[in-house]
């Protein structure tokens, strides 16, 4: 499994969970004149703004930078009580011929299964297949050790550059 920050064991049971993708184009260091991820950014910022002030993060080291940026950008606006969890992960990066990892015909079925699992339906994705398909599912699997997924509110579900992104929010998930 990919190294995660922090180790999931230290994260306490969250009142609200938000999932965002680890797209590096969300980082200010990679800003261009036009935002290639405008709709995703809006959805992610809106969802993260609705997290409580106190937020734990489960992410890869790169994903943690995306989380850090989104949390910093919403720092003054997050006022809710309780504890939030921000998970940074995404589906396959092999969904089209123009995708970073080119087209892998298993990608769509894999992402469909991940989506269903995130809504509390079906089996957890296999980490090895996720790695092959350039998906970032390890943080999702780690979060699933804390909480059981259930139907989520979906703010974004698309693959504009051949990478499957989700922005989802869950409230009051049952602890594992």
């Amino acid at each position: 499994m990919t190294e995660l920050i922090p180790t999931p064991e230290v994260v306490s049971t969250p009142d609200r969970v938000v999932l965002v993708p680890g797209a590096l184009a969300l980082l200010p260091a990679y800003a261009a004149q036009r935002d290639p991820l405008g709709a995703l950014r809006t959805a992610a910022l809106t969802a993260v703004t609705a997290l409580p002030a106190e937020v734990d993060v489960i992410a890869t080291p790169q994903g943690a930078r995306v989380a850090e940026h989104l949390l910093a950008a919403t720092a003054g606006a997050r006022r809710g009580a309780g504890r939030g969890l921000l998970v940074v992960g995404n589906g396959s990066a092999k969904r089209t011929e123009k995708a970073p990892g080119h087209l892998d015909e298993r990608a769509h079925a894999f992402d469909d299964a991940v989506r269903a699992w995130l809504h509390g339906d079906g089996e957890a994705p296999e980490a090895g297949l996720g790695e092959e398909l350039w998906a970032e599912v390890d943080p999702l699997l780690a979060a699933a050790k804390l909480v059981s997924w259930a139907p989520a509110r979906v703010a974004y579900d698309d693959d504009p550059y051949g990478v499957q992104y989700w922005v989802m929010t869950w409230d009051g998930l049952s602890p594992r």
Partner: protein
Amino acid sequence: MTLQLRRHQFADEDTLVMAIVNRTPDSFYDQGATWAEDKAFERVATVVGQGAEIVDIGGIKAAPGVEIDAAEEKSRVVDFVARVREAFPQVVISVDTWRAEVGDAVCRAGADVLNDAWGGADPELVDVAAAHDAAIICTHTGGVTPRTRPYRLEYDDVVRAAIDDTLAYAQRALDAGVKREAIVIDPAHDFGKNTFHSLEITRRLDEMVATGYPVLVSVSNKDFVGESLDRPVGERLIGTLAATTACALAGARIYRVHEVVETRMTVDMANTIAGRRLPALAIRGLQ
């Protein structure tokens, strides 16, 4: 620094394309193509459509030729400036003239910038700029008479001379009451310079930029490009754009050109490389 071209203001990081519009029958590049007023007006509409921020209207070709007196020069440019002002209120209008009398008339007609390509040959031009709150472009020509070619001119240090002379000219403009942010300096490639001089000016343009004054460059299709590459007029675009890249990397702010689209793209690419401009869009590898 912030540029104030009469009623038009530009931020520090803005680069500006100044399109050449000749109301002349004999300029070297277009050979009279826009001599007729309607042709010149079409040229203005075209370059504005292409995104030029400034049009530089000239009534006398730079090279030696038939004597054009002030009355004739005014007849070529004053009413034309008024027509452009009326049709394109958003565009900056520059007029390429060294004569105070012509400068005064075009400012009354709506010109924003006096582009004195001949380095202050008429000492009263700065007073005209100040009186109209217009901008002025201070060029270096090595002290030559307007409309003469360089002949055996040499400098101890051409860049030092260009800086000293343009700063002295800028000081005269300041003393006359022209605003600091309305003064631009121009090393004037090929004016009072041989090809080696123009190449050195290009190579060391950062020294002019370091003066703090916005720097204008006018390299478009000039002889130093032609001699460098052994290409006649009409085959100098690539060389022009390469020279433009060098100037842009050094930090030039205004580009006086014949080809607007190609120049804008070149300047933008160079400034993006230099880290002064963001890419238009960046997603490759960042999905």
